[in-house]
C-alpha cells in the first residue's frame, strides 16, 4: 500500500477467518492424533510422532516448498481438489488455511498428548469399570479433564496462525483482497513506506496476541481446585 492510502482491513479479517478455521480443523485432527499417540503402541509410532513435529522445526520456506509440490496444480492432490471444487487450491485463501494448519496441528498434538498422558489412569479405569464405552469415556471424562490445557494450546495455535508468514506467502501468495494475510500486509506496508498502516496493524495484532496469552494463562491455572489429579 502506498503511503497515505486509508487502511485496508481485509488482511486482518482474512487472517482472523483463516486462523479460526485452521484452529478448529487442527483441534479435530489434533485431538485424535494426540489420543492415538498417548494411548496406543504400534510399530512406527515414533515415526508418526516425528512426522507430526516436523513442520514446527522445518524452515518455513522449506515447508512451503514441500506444500507447493504436494498441493500444486500439477500434483495429484491439487488436481483432485480442482476437480472437486472447480479451482486450484494454491494461491487461494483456503491454501492459507492449509499453511496455518501445518503449524497449529503439531502444537495442539503435542499439548494434547502431554495432557492425555498426565491424566491419572484411575479415572479411565473407573469410567470403564462403571460401564462406559470408549466414546463415552472420551467425551465425558477424558476431554473435560484436559479441556483447559487443550483450549490453552488452541489459543496459542490461533495466535500462531494469525502470524504465519513464510508458508502462507509461498502457497497462498500475496494477492491483495484475496490472499493477503495481516503479516504479509504488515511486511508490504513497511516495504512500501506506509508506516502508519504498519503501526496500526502491528498494534492490533499485538493486542490480540496479548489477550490470547492472558486467556491461555487463565485457562491453565487451577482447574478443579487445588490439584487436578485424583484426590
Amino acid at each position, binding site marked *: 500500500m502506498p503511503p497515505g492510502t486509508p487502511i485496508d482491513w481485509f488482511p486482518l479479517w482474512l487472517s482472523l477467518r483463516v486462523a479460526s478455521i485452521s484452529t478448529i480443523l487442527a483441534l479435530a485432527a489434533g485431538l485424535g492424533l494426540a489420543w492415538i499417540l498417548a494411548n496406543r503402541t504400534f510399530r512406527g509410532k515414533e515415526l508418526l510422532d516425528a512426522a507430526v513435529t516436523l513442520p514446527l522445526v522445518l524452515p518455513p520456506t522449506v515447508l512451503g516448498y514441500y506444500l507447493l509440490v504436494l498441493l500444486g496444480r500439477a500434483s495429484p492432490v491439487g488436481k483432485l481438489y480442482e476437480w472437486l471444487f472447480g479451482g486450484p487450491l494454491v494461491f487461494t485463501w483456503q491454501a492459507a488455511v492449509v499453511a496455518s494448519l501445518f503449524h497449529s496441528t503439531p502444537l495442539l498434538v503435542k499439548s494434547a498428548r502431554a495432557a492425555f498422558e498426565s491424566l*491419572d489412569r484411575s*479415572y479411565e*479405569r*473407573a469410567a*470403564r*469399570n462403571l460401564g462406559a*464405552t470408549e466414546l463415552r469415556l472420551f467425551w465425558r471424562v477424558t476431554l473435560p479433564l484436559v479441556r483447559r490445557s487443550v483450549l490453552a494450546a488452541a489459543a496459542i495455535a490461533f495466535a500462531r496462525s494469525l502470524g504465519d508468514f513464510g508458508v502462507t506467502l509461498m502457497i497462498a501468495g500475496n494477492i491483495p483482497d484475496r490472499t493477503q494475510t495481516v503479516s504479509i500486509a504488515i511486511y508490504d506496508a513497511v516495504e512500501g513506506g506506509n508506516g502508519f498502516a504498519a503501526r496500526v496493524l502491528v498494534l492490533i495484532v499485538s493486542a490480540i496476541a496479548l489477550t490470547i496469552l492472558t486467556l491461555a494463562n487463565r485457562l491453565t491455572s487451577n482447574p*478443579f*481446585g487445588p490439584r487436578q489429579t*485424583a484426590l
Partner: protein
Amino acid sequence: MIQAKIRKQYPPGPESAGFSLDIEFRAAAGVTVLFGSSGAGKTLTLDSIAGFVRPDEGRILLDDQILFDGAAGVHMAPRARQCGYVFQNYALFPHMTLRENLEFAAERAPRLGRHRKVTEMLEKFHLSEVAGRRPYQVSGGQKQRCSIARALIGAPRILLLDEPGRGLDAPLRAEFYAMLRSVRQEFGTPMLLVTHDTEECFQLADEMVVMREGRAVQGGTPRKVFDQPANVDVARLLGLYNILPVEVRSLDPGRNSSRLRFQDFELAGPYFPGRLIGDQVWLYVRPDELSVAPRNGRPAFNQVPVTLLRTVEKPERLRLEFSGDIAVEVPFGSIEKISGVKEWIVEFPSGDLRIL
C-alpha cells in the same frame, strides 16, 4: 463366589526387576482379604479380576460366568464384568459433583429408576447435603463414602477394594470399618479387599489369603492364620511375633515334651511331631506371651538373660526391646522400675512354644 487362577509375568527390564504373579484362590460370600506387603501382587490380582490387566494364563470365574480364560482367549471388557471397584485414591471424577459421579455410574440402569437410585444412595451414605459439591470440596470420609456408593450403584456381583484404609486417620478408619460392615449387611455383596494392615484383616475378613512375591502362601480365617502361620515367611509378614532361631535338642513323645536350644540356653516345650533332633527351626512367640523381670542371680528354667536395648511407649503397652532380637510387651505401668536396669530375664512359657 469368585474362582481365580491368574498367571502374569513381567519380564525384568532396564527399569524393573520383573515380577511374576502365579496365584489361585477362591472367595465365597462375605469379605475376603488379600494380605501381603507392598509389591506382593495384591493389586495386580485385583486389577486382573476387574479386567484392567490381562493375565498371561489362567481362568477367572465370577458366579460361574467366565471373565477370563487364557486357553479359550476370553477376556471380558471391564465394563461388562459387573465388578464394583473402589480405588485407593477414590478416583472420583473431579469435574463432576458427587451426584453427577453417581449419575455417571447409574447410566446403565433404565432411565426411569435412575434418579431415585441416585437419591437413595446419597441418603444411605449420608451424602445428600454435599451432593452438589465437587470432590475437592468435601472431606476424606465423604469422598470415601461416595466412591463406595458409586461402586455399588450398579449392583455389582462383587466389590473390589484396593487398600481402602490406607492413609486414613484412626476415626476415619473406624468409620470405614463400620460402613463396610453395614454395606455387607445391607447389600450382601461379596467383597475382595487388598491390604497390608493386620488390624484390617481382623476387623473385616471372614477369610484371608496371604500373598508373598506373587504367590498365595496361606489361606484361612484370620484367627487361624495368625495363630498358626504356615511358615516363617508368613510369620514375618504378620509382624506380630518374635521369630528366633532354635535347634531341636531332644524329643519325648511319651511325656509330650521336647527341648529347644536358643543361644546357649535350653527351653522346654511340648512335643513337636514330625521333627528330628538337630533340626534348625524357628520359634515364634508373641511379645505379650513372654514375661520379664530384672536379673537377679542365675536364670532358672526356661529363662534367658538379656540386655535391655530400648523401650518404646505405645498407647496402651510398653514394649521392651532386648538383645537377641527379643521384644516383650507389657501393660503400661505393670513394671515399676525400668530406668537404669540393663540386665533382665525373659521367661518363655513352656507349654506354649510353637515352631515353624
